[in-house]
């Protein structure tokens, strides 16, 4: 048994002058306070990585900086799936009785701590150093390849993909912490600057500064009763060259395992938090997870299905596409928002019923997947 007892999230965008450790500390402080704990009660620390300030022992660097002496601490690295992977590990650790309260924390000054080119170059290194990187691909190009194939096989159009950017932006407009506050239309997405076909600028998440943290505890520490019901991972490849067929990607494997080990069906889900580094990522994952039929996710966006007041509210904070993406913290914002929704604390973004949520993270180029079900316990 494990509970998400505290959450902390900074605004995403520019945090001039703050380091990765500063942003991690801010988020950690918020999450610990939200859980009603003292720093000294946190006996486990899991952290992600910072591309701006790489370190071989980031968890202990953070623990020293933050002023805690955990009984268990290390970093976790699975790209964009890291946040949910840390949460899954924390769940396992507290469930096994190894520790009582695990702080999962990430933060990075990815936007102001380096040039945009440096960020793009650093991220492109998820490609194969000998067989891919010399060809000059970028992360949008890796996903552009996947998008071209997905559109070819399932008849998805660029206008379909644009719908996801518009939806995420609409949600972000209601969150003061989001990086973007200007509404966009499908026409705006279509007219935005080409980056790597078929993806245009507004199909891509931004580079952001920000921090996010959650506390996973063995027992509730406050009124929040958000329980991890089940989770599972799948890792089918690292490099897009070695990716399996679209029908054999890891999201389908992970969700099948999570459904089996939790007894949850997709029809039970009331709120969805799905990784959205690019519009294609969100479109594919929604369909892989069974939240829409193959090739029909965009139609569901158009019909309002994923709106805040729709049948399956999705990323009500605006997702990576519009809340922002600061690396590991990026997708942890999805988790923070989900916990806020499940505890009725999402304010003007509050959905009617978030009693059972599905979260899904993806790292690399659809390489690493984590699916997770959260439920509100009585």
């Amino acid at each position: 048994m494990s509970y998400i007892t505290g959450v902390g999230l900074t605004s995403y965008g520019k945090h001039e002058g703050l380091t990765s450790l500063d942003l991690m500390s801010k988020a950690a402080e918020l999450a610990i306070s939200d859980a009603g704990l003292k720093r000294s009660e946190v006996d486990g620390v899991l952290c992600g990585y910072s591309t701006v300030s790489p370190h071989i022992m980031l968890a202990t660097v953070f623990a020293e900086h933050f002023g805690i002496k955990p009984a268990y601490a290390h970093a976790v690295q699975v790209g964009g799936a890291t946040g949910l992977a840390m949460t899954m590990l924390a769940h396992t650790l507290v469930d096994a009785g190894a520790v009582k309260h695990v702080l999962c924390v990430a933060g990075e000054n990815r936007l102001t701590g380096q040039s945009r080119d440096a960020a793009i170059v650093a991220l492109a290194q998820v490609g194969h150093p000998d067989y891919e990187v010399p060809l000059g691909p970028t992360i949008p190009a890796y996903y552009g390849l996947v998008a071209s194939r997905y559109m070819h096989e399932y008849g998805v159009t660029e206008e379909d993909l644009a719908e996801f950017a518009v939806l995420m932006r609409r949600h972000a407009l209601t969150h003061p912490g989001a990086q973007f506050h200007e509404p966009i239309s499908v026409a705006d997405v279509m007219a935005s600057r080409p980056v790597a076909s078929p993806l245009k600028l507004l199909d891509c998440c931004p580079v952001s500064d920000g921090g996010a943290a959650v506390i996973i505890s063995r027992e509730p520490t406050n009124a929040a009763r958000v329980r991890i019901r089940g989770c599972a991972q799948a890792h089918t490849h690292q490099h897009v060259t070695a990716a399996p067929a679209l029908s054999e990607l890891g999201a389908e494997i992970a969700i099948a395992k999570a459904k089996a080990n939790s007894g949850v069906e997709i029809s039970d889900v009331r709120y969805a938090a799905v990784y959205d580094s690019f519009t294609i990522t969100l479109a594919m994952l929604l369909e892989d997870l069974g939240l829409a039929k193959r090739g029909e996710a965009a139609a569901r966006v158009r019909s309002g299905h994923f709106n805040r007041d729709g049948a399956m509210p999705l990323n009500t904070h605006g997702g990576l596409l519009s809340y922002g993406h600061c690396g590991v913290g990026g997708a942890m914002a999805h988790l923070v928002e989900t916990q806020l929704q499940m505890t009725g604390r999402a304010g003007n973004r509050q959905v009617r019923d978030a009693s059972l949520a599905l979260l899904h993270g993806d790292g690399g180029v659809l390489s690493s997947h984590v699916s997770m079900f959260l439920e509100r316990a009585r």
Partner: protein
Amino acid sequence: MTKPADWTGGHEAILYQSCGACGKAQYFRRGFCAACGSSDLAEKRASGKGKIYATSVVMRAATPETRAHVPYNIVLVDAAEGFRMMAHGANDLRIGDAVTARFAQFAGRLVPYFEK
């Protein structure tokens, strides 16, 4: 392992490994077959014939060297020999096109370049 005599080492060739035990072709070179673990691998030279699996034309590159080549098409090619590879291709290539490799200079390196 020694440096392969293929494009990754500056030679005008695409090499792959063929497993003597399970018959699988693999493109990323290593000392064993990733499918079955056998070390019975033969290094072979690919014909350069293949079919386009996916494409993405890069319009926004990240370094001055690569920016000089924009737009350039990153393609995934299913080689006739049964492996998939990343390469460059003509900008008008479409999924399913039958293609043949030549070699081109890109950002100071030799890279495989596919065209119809």
